[in-house]
């Protein structure tokens, strides 16, 4: 844990130093440590209980790409439920019409 805290503080310091590099015209996202840590960490072991591919803060938090998939999992589930309701409605319509025709109640 001590190592993680040290590493975190280094990241912050690097961020400040990176700001100075802007004068050199370098794009920030290529040199930003926070972003690169997210990209590079998946294959690295940091020890101290930090999970692979996770954010550099906290453990057990999925990485950014997994969170994007989670968003679409929720949206997909909602669309899936609405689709199931739609299919049920169509089957119900069919059943009602066939039933009324067979029993000759109307039409």
């Amino acid at each position: 844990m001590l190592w993680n805290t040290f590493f975190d503080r280094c990241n912050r310091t690097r961020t400040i130093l990176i700001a100075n590099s802007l004068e050199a015209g370098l794009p920030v996202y290529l040199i930003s440590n926070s972003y690169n840590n997210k990209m590079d960490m998946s294959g690295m072991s940091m020890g101290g209980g930090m999970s692979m591919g996770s954010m550099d803060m906290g453990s057990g938090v999925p990485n950014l790409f997994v969170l994007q998939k989670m968003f679409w999992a929720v949206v997909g589930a909602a669309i899936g439920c609405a689709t199931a309701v739609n299919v049920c409605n169509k089957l119900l319509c069919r059943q009602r019409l066939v039933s009324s025709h067979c029993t000759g109640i109307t039409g």
Partner: protein
Amino acid sequence: MMATSAAIIREASNASLTIPFGNSPAWVTPTVGRMSLVLAEFVVVMVLCFYGLHPSDQWEWEDIGYRTGFIACCQLPLIVLLAGKNNIIGFLVGVSYEKLNWLHRWTARMLLLTVTIHMGYWFADWYRYDYITVKLKTDAITQRGFAAWVILVWIVFSSMAPIRRWNYEFFVVQHIITYVGFLAAVYLHLPAEVKVWVWIPIVLVILDRTLRSLSVVCTNVSIFHPTARRRSFWASKATFEPLDPETTRITIASPPLRWTAGQHVLLSCHTIAPLQSHPFTVASIPSDGKMVFLVKSKAGGTKRYLRYAEKLGLPLTETPMDHRHHRAVTIEGPYGRMRPLKQFDSVMLIAGSSGGTFTIPLLRDVIQSMKSGNSGPNPRWSWMTNPGAATRYIRFVWVVKSRAQYSWFSAQLVEAMQDVAQLRRQGHDVELETSIYVTCDEDFIATSKNDPPQVGCGSRELSALKPVVSQDEKPIKDDTSPSSISSKSSIEQFKKPSCGPNGTCCCQTTIEDEDAITNATACECHCGSDVSSETAEKPVTPQDSISSDQPLTPAKPEYTAADTESMTMLSGRPQPRTLIRKMLEQALGESAVVVCGPKGLVTNARQSVVSLSDERAIHKGTGAQGCYLHAEAFDY
């Protein structure tokens, strides 16, 4: 259990609050269903943006910046999926694109919130070192991101109702242009790993546009219709006839596409109104063999159609027109989707003013299904086709501005009643009740705020004796007989113009119970120094109605008064709650309420359905059957 859940979800989804604002019109909140969906999206986005992070910790602000950026860019495809006319989500869930447009707007607002948080945390992080302006001036990524944010702010701002409705054509053009700019800025702002989230919406837009273009070509070019006799390259030819001083009837004699009742198409005639395409409901049914549109003249393209029709001066006739009078039109569609009404035991159709163009085809389609099902079992029917109709009772209510408006569809209504009478004579248990309400109440017949004010009398003071009213009811004095009025009353002094078109009497009394009306005066109105009274007439034969107006279509021969005795024409406005309750009380299965009209009428009907569903405890052990609601409001 499923029925109970469905009933509870329907009640909750359609419920809304009415918040009075003194003398101003009351504000009706969005439905609980819509608000819940938006709230759910908000919660999901916020959880994904902040889970496992600590916003108060300044050393995590960069992490939040990255996180919110990733969550923001993954929302882009959803916005486009909800916007397209060939809507994948709409196809899956059984909802048409225009019903999803509100969700498209709110998803975009959620995106704006997310990117604002994204930008905010980055700015907060740099602000500590006084670095915001340095970044904005020197860093290309920051510049592109900020540009994207500014464009998105404009997109969301310009899509708000007052601006959107001010000039819709301008709104659409600038919306597409700014969206392209927004996507370009976002693409340049994002790192390579997440650029796929920009490619997906681009592909979806291209797919939608390609499908639409192919559909337009296949629909309108003659070579794709080999079975039909086509004289020219362009398959869609229409005639334009003036129906009344405000309405044009557009008829396509040989429609190049198939549609179902209640659907609409995008129609354009570039020789009359260049570069404009408008959605119009098809006012005829496929068995008519032609597509008819009744287009209300407002500003822009619809006004041009009317002017052209008046200039041409073609007589209104059912016979096919000379081809010289045909104009090439482009139709795209059909669009629009709802549950088939013929499956419901009881159907109530409520229309306000030009909403009749939506409900009349639905009515005729249900009756047509009843007749086709009557022809006996067909062994060729497969699971794909739906034979006959399960409908037993139809209640048709149309609120019109004047009797002239009723004459748009008088012949079709008479025919519908004749068909039902014929079915009854054959021993089928079907019933059709029709009521036409003539009123000038804006809540029930207004089509837009730009409608010209009523001409005729000026405003004057009236003392009103009234009944149960809806929140915006301004009743007219009735000294003689309260037979049509309930026992509850309140006296109000108010000023309101209350004359109908051309200074005719205009009644805004709410008619609580049609059956209670006799020959007593339902309302009284004043026109200058003249006092006239309007009697709630019942019943009136369609012969009287048609003969009192200029005959616009050939009268149907050979019908008896008995066939049409279930039609009622009344002066005043309906009480949707009473009408719906009566229908629900006699229903043996699930009922459907379809309402199409101005927002006031639609809101009234929606609130009535919700409160009746709760009052009757539908599917909660009382035996009351379900009620499905489909609402179409005049909106864009």
